[in-house]
């Protein structure tokens, strides 16, 4: 490379975001793990940035926070605006929102299954890290699968763009409805796409079964203690306690699977509190009515989890038939529920792909899907609005308060990864404890740690770049007196 024609430096992935993704492990006198701390970069200043702006801008602003889940932020903000302006969208508008949202969930989950986390399993947990990616996946399951992944994702994204505008700058959700719906001419093409999406989701479920579930070692790994934490779980459910990504009540079950709470989004602050640790910027969410006990897990500790595993743990059933069949099979293999195995997130994610695709088919068959009754114009004075959706990575809250002119006076976002942060820290510590004994660090520490947090599909630094994409993970081992013994970088 060149730099003003003079200087030569190398591009090291580790330096892409210097100093982030740090794990500090503290050993006791015997050289066993006393505590492990996992730190990730946090974006700062969003509230200050937003205050004084019109609340109406928030669906556009929040969708730009993140290049990965713009649609989730757009939808959570839009729903918060409905609430802020005291307006209920007409049914066809709700259908179109759900259509776009489930299309987004399908393509985002597909990305994780084939490209990001899934390769750990499809290629194999013992395969070299460099092969555990989409290239390894197509090496194992065939080139045409790769082509199908790309082609299906592209078509689903075209649907989103057709209705909602550019993925990263959607102009779609408005308080009380949507700016654009489907025309009757769109319906046949999108019906076909929904059916093809369902084929693709079912095909993915089969790939997962053939490769992962047929392999006893993989199943043992999923069930192993190193990847198991008994915590509370949270997710959105409909009136039959079936998961719904777009809307519903927030349901929490305890580590035994018993319903602990069920509440509306407006009550979220009665249930969720944030704990601050001196070693991390990240605020750890916990259940207020259980209390913070310090990463212990179990029924007395308010640590909870969100995302696919959690959503299936709070469910009594799935809302669509093929997903329900897959859900029963999942429960029979790993249950009884709640299933506490972090790596089961991968399987749960595939079942959710099937649900999202079936829901797309249902919506496209709805006679109102191409209606032009798309908006109720708000007339009430805005004051306070809270919106919630299930983002691919878990429950996402947007909370806005404004003056009577709709100018923001309070903004609070709880993103999925924040809900999961305490359980993620527990996963890192468990891996460290399993692999470090008597000052001896086993091979594969980084790999084990990474597999644990990759299952959560974490969302850490919300920006996208062309440079080498590796998470700059650094593990530092400290002796009982705090001195640095060893630094492991990837």
């Amino acid at each position, binding site marked *: *490379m*060149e*730099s*003003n024609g003079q200087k030569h*430096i*190398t*591009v090291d*992935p580790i*330096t*892409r*975001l210097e100093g982030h993704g740090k794990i500090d492990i503290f050993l006791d006198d015997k050289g066993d793990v006393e505590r492990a701390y996992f730190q990730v*970069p*946090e*974006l*700062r*200043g*969003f509230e*200050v*940035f937003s205050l004084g702006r019109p609340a109406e801008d928030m669906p556009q*602003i929040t969708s*730009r*926070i993140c*290049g*990965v889940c*713009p649609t989730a932020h757009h939808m959570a903000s839009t729903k918060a605006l409905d609430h802020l302006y005291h307006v209920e969208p007409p049914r066809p508008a709700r259908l179109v929102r759900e259509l776009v949202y489930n299309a987004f969930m399908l393509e*985002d989950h597909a*990305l*994780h299954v084939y*490209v*990001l*986390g899934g*390769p750990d399993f499809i290629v194999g947990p013992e395969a070299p890290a460099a092969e555990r*990616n*989409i*290239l390894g996946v*197509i090496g194992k399951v065939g*080139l045409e699968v*790769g*082509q199908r992944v*790309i082609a299906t994702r*592209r078509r689903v*994204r075209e649907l989103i763009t057709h209705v909602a505008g550019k*993925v*990263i700058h959607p102009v779609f959700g408005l308080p009380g409805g949507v700016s654009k719906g489907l025309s009757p001419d769109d319906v046949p093409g999108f019906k076909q796409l929904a059916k093809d999406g369902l084929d693709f989701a079912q095909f993915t479920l089969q790939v997962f079964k053939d490769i992962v579930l047929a392999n006893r070692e993989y199943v043992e790994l999923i069930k192993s203690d190193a990847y198991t934490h008994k915590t509370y779980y949270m997710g959105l459910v409909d009136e039959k306690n079936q998961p719904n990504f777009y809307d519903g009540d927030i349901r929490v079950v305890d580590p035994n699977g018993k319903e602990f709470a069920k509440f509306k989004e407006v009550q979220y602050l009665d249930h969720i509190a944030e704990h601050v640790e001196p070693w991390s910027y990240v605020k750890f969410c916990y259940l207020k009515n259980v209390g913070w006990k310090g990463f212990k897990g179990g029924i007395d500790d308010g640590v909870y989890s969100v995302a696919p595993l959690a959503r299936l743990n709070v469910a009594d059933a799935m809302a669509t038939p093929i997903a329900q069949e897959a859900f029963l099979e999942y429960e029979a293999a790993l249950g009884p529920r709640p299933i506490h195995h972090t790596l089961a997130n991968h399987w749960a994610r595939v079942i959710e792909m099937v649900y999202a695709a079936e829901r797309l088919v249902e919506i496209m068959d709805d006679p109102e899907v191409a209606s032009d009754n798309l908006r109720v114009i708000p007339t009430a004075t805005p004051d306070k609005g809270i919106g919630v959706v299930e983002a691919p990575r878990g429950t996402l809250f947007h909370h806005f308060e404004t003056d009577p002119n709709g100018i923001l006076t309070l903004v609070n976002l709880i993103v999925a990864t924040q809900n999961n942060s305490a359980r993620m820290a527990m996963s890192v510590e468990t891996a460290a404890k399993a692999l470090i004994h008597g000052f001896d660090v086993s091979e594969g520490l980084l790999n084990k740690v990474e597999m644990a947090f*990759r299952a959560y*599909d*974490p*969302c*850490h*630094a919300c*920006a*996208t*770049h*062309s*440079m*080498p*994409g*590796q*998470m700059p*993970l650094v593990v530092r081992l400290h002796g009982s007196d705090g001195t640095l013994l060893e630094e492991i970088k990837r």
Partner: protein
Amino acid sequence: MKDRTLVLGLGNDLLGDDGVGLTVARVVESRHQQRDVDVVESGEAGLALLEIIDGYRRVVIVDAIQTGQVEAGTVMIYGPEDFRRVVAPSAHYSGLPEVLELGARIGCDMPRDLKVVAIEIADPLHFSTELTEKVAHAIEEAVSKVLGLLGEPALQAR
């Protein structure tokens, strides 16, 4: 294959310096005088990049980078040979090298010529729509480098 060139600005315009690639792309769009050049801005990651670059003969990406090894505002040019293929633990870290190789393997039209004009940045972690001073000063140089790669003499600021 489209016999066209793509200038692709990447980044997040809400995260201060992180959006410099988008700003540079916008200036390039207003200045370049070639008919076969498209300028696109994107805040998306990973596979979405494949969909954007698929079919272009030549691609110039403009992006923020944080090597920590040079002054903020330093403008550098990389080629694909500078990338190392890596595993991405999250969508936020899926990188271009993987995307390029994947595209080639599954039969997409990958560019024959690809360069990244990278601007070293100071702070990508605070919400702001402003660039820090050194990074703002680097815009002209980055624009010149992009135009240079497009085969145009660097135009004077107007």
